[in-house]
């Protein structure tokens, strides 16, 4: 392989060749043997294997060595599995999924960020396949990534690999989530500690109540789990110390990440408990406020079926007494739909999106047109600039451009 343009300083010949002499590349004159220039002695093995003339991707090597990102990804998958304490079988499955997904054309060219997220998604899919309850939010926290991105990558991955990953029900998530709360006597003060088992039991009942009252459907699971665990903790020992704790302080104490949505869920859950607490016979119709309801949670949960029945019947009575008065008001329903006015049949528990419905923009009544009508010229002209306007616009743009240049 001659190098073009070089001349041997000794004999002036143009015939210079590359000579790999004991791993030191040299340029040597073919006629007189003078060494024109020397390369560096290679010292490291990696240079020898990776500093070749032919690029690795173009080489004919059959067993392609895994690329660095794939290796990193597999390490990440293994690390996630160890943090979550998954079984060995699950770790293997997750790794296989990751390798398959990584090499698939859908994923080989995506950004590094997505590849990182892909590792977490493989772990999530494996957990779901083995019915190991884990929430997407947990993966989100572990990867510190955008939940939307995780969602997108996860769905694409499931579609690509064609795996069946049934989502876990919320009650299974509760047990795992509960274990994350550090409330044993060795972590917190005796008065504030609570065993995981008791907490899970009470929180499960609260969660069931929330689900019945439409607080769970369609919502993120983690905030409602946090809310039910918080209320369970408060109600298991409703001392003044515990009642003074806000949700934020509780999360800090239990070393769990704070959530901005969980306080709203706490309020909603307390409202539901108040509605039921109202029916406790020994209160004799006293007002139950969110502040006072925590002490009664024990009783409410033990007799919740009876209380629910009573609440429903008293609610129906209230509606019946109301309806003769409001019968005429119901005529002014919304114009958009010939729907049953909700106010007449409002039940005791409703999804919050129904109760606090967004105010819709006023619907313009659809005009009957044929689509082939005449289009008036004046209307079209109203959308076109006059020549004067065009001139003004161009001048203004030039003035703006020149002032920018001056700056």
């Amino acid at each position, binding site marked *: 392989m001659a190098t073009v343009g070089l001349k041997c300083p000794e004999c002036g010949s143009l015939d210079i060749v590359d000579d790999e002499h004991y791993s030191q590349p040299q340029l040597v004159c073919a006629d007189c043997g003078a060494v024109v220039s020397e390369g560096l002695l290679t010292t490291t093995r990696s240079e020898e294997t990776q500093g070749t003339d032919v690029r690795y991707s173009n080489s004919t090597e059959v067993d392609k060595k895994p690329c660095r990102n794939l290796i990193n990804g597999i390490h990440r998958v293994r690390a996630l599995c160890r943090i979550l304490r998954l079984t060995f079988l699950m770790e293997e499955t997750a790794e296989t999924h990751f390798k398959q997904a990584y090499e698939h054309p859908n994923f080989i060219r995506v950004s590094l960020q997505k590849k990182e997220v892909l590792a977490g998604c493989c772990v999530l899919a494996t957990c779901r396949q083995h019915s190991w309850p884990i929430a997407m939010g947990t993966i989100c926290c572990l990867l510190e990534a955008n939940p939307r991105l995780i969602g997108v990558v996860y*769905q694409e991955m499931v579609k690509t690999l064609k795996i069946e990953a049934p989502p876990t029900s919320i*009650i299974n998530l509760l047990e795992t989530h509960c274990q994350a709360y550090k409330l044993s006597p060795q972590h917190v003060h005796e008065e504030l500690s609570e065993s995981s088992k008791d907490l899970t039991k009470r929180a499960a009942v609260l969660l069931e109540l929330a689900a019945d009252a439409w607080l769970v459907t*369609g919502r993120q699971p983690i905030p409602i789990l946090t809310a039910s665990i918080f209320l369970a903790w408060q109600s298991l020992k409703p001392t003044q110390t515990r009642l003074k704790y806000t949700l934020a302080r509780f999360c800090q104490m239990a070393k769990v990440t704070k959530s901005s949505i969980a306080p709203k869920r706490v309020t909603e859950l307390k409202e539901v408990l108040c509605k039921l607490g109202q029916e406790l016979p020994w209160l004799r119709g006293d007002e139950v406020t969110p502040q006072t309801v925590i002490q009664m949670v024990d009783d409410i949960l033990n007799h919740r079926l009876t209380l629910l029945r009573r609440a429903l019947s008293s609610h129906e009575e209230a509606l019946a007494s109301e309806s003769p008065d409001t019968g005429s008001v119901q005529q002014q329903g919304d114009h958009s739909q010939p729907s*049953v006015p909700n106010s007449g049949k409002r039940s005791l528990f409703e999804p919050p999106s129904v109760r606090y419905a967004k105010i819709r923009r006023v619907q313009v009544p659809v005009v009957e047109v044929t689509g*082939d009508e005449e*289009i008036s010229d004046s*209307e*079209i002209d109203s959308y*076109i600039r006059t020549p004067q306007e065009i001139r003004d616009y161009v001048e203004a743009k030039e003035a703006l451009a020149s002032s920018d240049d001056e700056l």
Partner: protein
Amino acid sequence: VVDNFLKKIHVIPLSIIFFLCLEMKGPSYLSSLSQPEKDVGKDLDLSFLPEETSGNDASNANVTQDSGVFDACRQEESAETDPKKVAMPGASTFCPMTPVTPVAESSGIIPMLQNIVSTVNLACPLDLKSIALQARNAEYNPKRFDAVIMRILEPRTTALIFSSGKMVCTGAKSEELCHLAARKFARVVQKLGFPAKFLDFKIHNMVGSCDVCFPIRLEGLLLDHQQFSSYVPELFPGLIYRMVKPRIVLMIFVSGKVVLTGAKERREIYEAFENIYPILKGFRKQ
């Protein structure tokens, strides 16, 4: 005991209850499962099945029954065996139709069209810069998107006009309004000095929405119609139902609002809603 309930939850959807009733009738149904080619409808006499709503009551003793997620806590003792494994392969040979209802009664609710997307070919190359300069209602930012975005007030619509002469028109609430709007945009382009024509007007997508006026148990709907539904509350609050016939995607929300999209014709939206309404009624709180 509560721990046991918590540990082994089998949520039993309505369809399993149907299958259980069928099993009690006799082995004829189960034998028909092994012959997938036969038209299953002919073999089955489903007249004895209770109506959906009363079936709900019959299986639950409690008032607070309706939670689809926690059914199993109360029914676990009554149905230990899990025929789910048997029933599911059957479900795929069983043509995926709605659970038994008597004659499909009209729901009385008509979905309203909210958006229609159409395309038309103006059949002449366009100078987008000149259009953006001469038109009042146009915006053109080539660095962001290589088309002019033009809007008209009546009907309230938006058009994307490309330099090849193709145009996309969106925002109209009916097919006729869409056609009228597209013609108005073409007329504007004509007035700006281009020999625009109006070829191949075609509607590509129609979106409708309506309200069934009762809350819906999305978890229950997911269990019953697993093969069509996708419900991931962590990502999206609604359940996405991909109906096969007609090929429409529905987004069903807990409040009872339903959004239907993917239709090429108005009647597909109406048909899809008539198909889904009896299914949703089955998940209504009694």
